[in-house]
């Protein structure tokens, strides 16, 4: 392992996430099993259990979302510490195979975690927590992804060592039709980071609004709160899409080497 402040934080977040996930999984399993046969009194007790579960899951998912962002920053910081690495491609080579799977997973975990968070947000606004059972089940569905995400982080940062690696110049040559995505986005055209993040958030917000719409149509109690949430989510998504579109102009100018963008 390469011990730096960032790799240590990533490792701690991973171990912390794993511990909380096991705790939350047992709670969610218990609620899912009992809820169908529960009487009024037990339902009330399960509702209280659910609020504890909900708080723990918020902590887990938010820590995973923070880890997803920190993943790129940590990998960027490791480049000078790995001989031969010129960009994050080299870092991923040093942490192979965990790093490659982890990178792929990090690109879409936000979409999945956000569905649970947005549904729980509207569930908390309605009396009687109508999505209690659904959210416990969705958490159990998310469990393999959550475990994979956390375990891969721990495995990657625990096993990455300062070995000599071949970097992107072995794959991306002058004849390659596409550029090295890491060199392109993180080093030479960083305005594209703003574009990608803005559109990513925009798409995520639309997906979350679709999930809220699906469950709002199923539950009459959620209709009012759900529609209000959908309106806000889509409006925010539109805002991010506009931000991404505005950012694409300087990003393209940067690629074209316009004066002011090249040293």
């Amino acid at each position, binding site marked *: 392992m390469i011990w730096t402040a960032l790799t240590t934080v990533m490792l701690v977040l991973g171990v912390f996430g794993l511990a909380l996930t096991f705790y939350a999984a047992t709670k969610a399993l218990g609620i899912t099993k009992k809820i169908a046969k529960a009487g009024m009194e037990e339902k009330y007790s399960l509702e209280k259990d659910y609020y504890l579960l909900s708080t723990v899951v918020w902590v887990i998912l938010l820590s995973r979302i923070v880890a997803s962002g920190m993943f790129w920053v940590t990998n960027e910081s490791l480049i000078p510490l790995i001989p031969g690495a010129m*960009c994050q491609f080299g870092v991923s080579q040093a942490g192979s195979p965990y790093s490659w799977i982890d990178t792929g997973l990090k690109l879409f975990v936000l979409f999945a975690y956000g569905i649970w968070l947005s549904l729980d947000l509207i569930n908390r606004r309605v009396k009687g927590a109508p999505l209690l059972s659904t959210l416990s089940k969705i958490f159990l569905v998310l469990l393999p992804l959550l475990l994979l995400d956390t375990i891969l982080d721990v495995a990657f940062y625990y096993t990455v060592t300062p070995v000599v690696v071949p970097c992107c110049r072995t794959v991306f040559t*002058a004849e390659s039709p596409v550029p090295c995505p890491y060199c392109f986005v993180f080093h030479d055209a960083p305005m594209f980071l703003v574009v990608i993040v803005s559109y990513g958030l925009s798409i995520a917000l639309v997906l979350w609004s679709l999930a809220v719409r699906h469950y709002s149509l199923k539950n009459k109690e959620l209709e009012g709160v759900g529609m209000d949430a959908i309106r806000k989510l*889509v409006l925010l998504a539109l805002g991010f*899409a506009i931000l*991404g579109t505005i950012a694409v102009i300087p990003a393209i100018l940067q690629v074209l080497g316009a004066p002011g963008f090249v040293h």
Partner: protein
Amino acid sequence: MLPRRTFIILVLLAVAVVASVLAYSFLRSQESAIAIEPSMNITHYELNRKTSELVSVNITNFSNSSATLVSAKMVKIQSGIAVSSSTFQSPFSLAANSTIRVPLNFKLDPEGADYFIYIYTSKGTAIKGSISYP
């Protein structure tokens, strides 16, 4: 009302993707369309490894005609983007069968990369060379 907003988002996304792909394709086609001088070469690269800088290049003219050097550009091969460029305040005259030193002071990536160097002549042609750093 809501699907219309979602539709606008998708249209904006599509516009951005298409514009970016077109810009990159245009850049690549521009670079492949540069007319390269066959009888002029970059024969020496002066590097400052402490500051990770391409200080200057030596250009040798093997032809019997002179040339005027007006600007320079450095393209990072891994990203295909021009990372440095400069237009010379006073163009360099390169006489027939001679060598000239052209100062550049282009910053190189300290972690390493491969670059194409283009030195443009007043005719619009370019003298091309490549370096791998470090």
